[in-house]
């Protein structure tokens, strides 16, 4: 790690440590009952002692998240490419997609639980619906982002539609596609966890949170939240890393 990265990393790390220390001190000295707010050390201990449960919850939830994410993003991209040739369909579908993106889609969770049962398939279905529209809207914007000059150049090469698509327009759309992929990591986690509030087999992060809250074992809730937070950040970080590799030519990375 070079000194530049270190000096970028140090302030937030220090801030985080101070926050945790302050939290620990406030809980211990202030005598806050653990039912309201457990100390970070208690949460850490719980995290350590409940690894099997937390791992099982993680595996259950991540299955729904990943399956839904892949299907939702892939079909969003596919539909964007399909409607790309028809301005009529675009003008009809894109405003609809924008509208749907602003809707509280998590509300379909109870319906999906009825259709696909309690297991991870219903969670994946919620995630598919939540991730489809951001991908559709972004990918459609990305496909129309290649400049007129570049398209003209492709025409002078006598490139057909597919060649133009594969060599020019899809690569040009990549930054937009990755933007949607990044937004969708968070949406996928939210969709899966909220869907588990509506019914699960007795495993999964959303299930764990809602039942342990009922038992007032708040340290277990926090431990699950820590796992969810790490999972969410790691998911995002992986996608961001792939983006960096795939779109190294883009202005936002070239500058550094």
């Amino acid at each position, binding site marked *: 790690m070079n000194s530049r990265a270190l000096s970028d990393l140090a302030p937030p790390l220090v801030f985080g440590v101070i926050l945790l220390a302050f939290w620990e001190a406030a809980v211990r000295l202030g005598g806050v*009952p653990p039912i309201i707010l457990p100390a970070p050390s208690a949460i850490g201990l719980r995290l350590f002692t409940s690894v099997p449960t937390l791992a099982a919850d993680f595996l259950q939830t991540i299955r729904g998240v990943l399956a839904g994410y892949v299907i939702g993003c892939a079909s969003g991209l596919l539909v964007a490419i399909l409607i790309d040739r028809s301005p009529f369909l675009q003008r009809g579908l894109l405003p609809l997609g924008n509208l749907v993106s602003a809707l509280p889609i998590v*509300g379909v969770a109870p319906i999906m639980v009825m259709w696909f049962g309690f297991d991870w398939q219903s969670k994946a279905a919620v995630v598919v619906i939540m991730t489809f529209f951001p991908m559709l809207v972004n990918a459609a914007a990305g496909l129309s982002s290649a400049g007129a000059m570049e398209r003209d150049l492709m025409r002078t090469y006598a490139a057909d539609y597919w060649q133009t698509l594969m060599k020019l327009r899809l690569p040009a759309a990549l930054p937009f596609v990755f933007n949607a992929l990044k937004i969708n*990591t968070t949406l996928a986690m939210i969709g899966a966890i909220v869907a588990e509030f509506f019914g699960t087999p007795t495993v999964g992060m959303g299930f764990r*949170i809602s039942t342990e809250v009922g038992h007032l074992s708040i340290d277990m809730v926090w431990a699950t*939240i820590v796992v969810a937070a790490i999972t969410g950040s790691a998911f995002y970080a992986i996608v961001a890393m792939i983006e960096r590799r795939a779109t190294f030519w883009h202005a936002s990375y070239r500058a550094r």
Partner: protein
Amino acid sequence: MKSVLPLTTILLALVAFWYVAAAMMNASLQRDVFANAGRTDYSTLDLIGASLNMERPKLPAPHQIVAELDKLVFETPPTSKRSLVFHAGITLEETLIGFLFGAALGVGLAVAIVSVRVLERSAMPWIVASQTVPIIALAPMIVVILNQFDIGGMTPKAVIAAYLSFFPITVGMVKGLRSPDPLQLDLMRTYSATSGQTLSKLRAPASLPFFFASMKIGAAAALVGAIVAEVTKSEDGGLGARLLAGSYYGQTVQIWATLFVAAALSGALVGIIGLAGRLTLRRMAFPT
């Protein structure tokens, strides 16, 4: 206006597709109903007709949802506990209170982050990282914690709504307050403007497009927060409580009607903010 025809076409196609899907998904259920009633002499048309008018279908047909909406929105008095207007009112109130607090907090924190350099370097990475965390997972716990303090009713839900809307607003506003380019900031310095003056005369006006964009996201997030909070604490009503009740009792038509009301609420909130934004930005001669 050019998109009216395509949009209607797509919507009509969607409704047609919905009818086909409803008939197909409900057919096997309806066959069982006929079998239980000892009826074997039904035609395919009978089957289709009946599957589109079931009491608890897998997928209700659009006209059933419209009828349910008509019943629960217009014909039930808004004071009744069955009225969706009643529950939408509860949700809207929580959303608005939470959104106002979340927006004030988010804008305030964004101003602090932009003006205090230490805060920016230390706190901003956490705020950005927190965007990748499924914050909604905290909702049930916040409800319980507030309950320990005897804070019940609307407050926990408004808190969750505020909490969900606060992060996107902070991030958007930090971006907006930083949007003036270095030349303009230098100009302010040549005027020997204080940082307060720079904020009110340059940064704040320049951030307006970002302000309205993040308000739209924040309002939608606040509504999601309120609805999810109502699912976890459903005894006081609200659209989320209706969703949960519907899923307990298999009242699919009611769930769909509730969803449409929630969608309309979200659309109205975002639409109003968008309209206010367009009018303001046009008057201030922003390119829109």
